[in-house]
């Protein structure tokens, strides 16, 4: 039967109930400061950070990257480059469906970010 306590981790040092927890196994990289939970099970102690903020930040960066990608591709696809310098025939958009797919993924990520638990 294990027991759970609130804890924080700073520079790889886990603190709970006012003391540094010696010999605690950190179940993450433990590089950045975090808050999470300490799980004690007999002689073992584990620290589990709350990674929701990290995940949210990651999703936001992915949405930004996809927005910029989609925008750049749309600009290129609708630039109507001349196919032939002498013929004067502008190009037609070729990547519309692919750009739509990127926008769809971006929308899914946006929804996922809002629904993070």
């Amino acid at each position, binding site marked *: 039967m*294990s*027991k759970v306590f609130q804890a924080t981790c700073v520079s790889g040092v886990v603190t*709970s*109930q*006012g*003391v540094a927890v010696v010999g605690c196994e950190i179940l993450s990289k433990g590089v950045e400061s975090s808050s999470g939970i300490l799980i*004690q099970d*007999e*002689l073992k*102690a584990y620290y589990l950070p709350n990674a929701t903020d990290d995940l949210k930040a990651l999703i936001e960066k992915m949405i930004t990257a996809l927005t910029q990608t989609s925008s750049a591709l749309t600009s290129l696809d609708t630039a109507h480059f001349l196919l032939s310098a002498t013929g004067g025939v502008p190009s037609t958009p070729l990547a519309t469906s692919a750009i739509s797919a990127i926008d769809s993924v971006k929308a899914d990520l946006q929804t996922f970010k809002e629904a993070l638990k």
Partner: protein
Amino acid sequence: MKVVCRHGHFAFYPFGPSDIGRFNSYFSQTLEMENDYYTFPFLKGAPRTSLQTKPWLGLPAIKNYEGRNAWDVMKENGFVYSIDKKIVVPKASIFVTADIPRASFYYLASTALIQPGCRVITGQQVLSYEGNFDLDQKTLKIRELSFE
């Protein structure tokens, strides 16, 4: 009254409704109920977890430990309840000896309660025991003794 000392923790199980009152009167104590037993007030609500250096009932714990019961934590940290001081102390700080001669079907303690952590004549350290405290004769008849 049944007396169960587990790794320095005490649990008392009365046989009748007057046992607790008589025990309290004799020992000038006020046992308190916890779960299905009575115990000394200082031990009531003792946590079943400890963190190294964090005080556990006032004494810095030496181990991170999570157990099913408070006496598991006492075992891991080497703590015992001091009957005299009414606090938890390291078992290493107990230097008393106890004479516990064997009677017919039990050991007969020479004191009303045996201080956990005390040593018998062979040098073994008593940490746990179980027996009956006879409230009429004021004697502790021990059925089982466990050493370190």
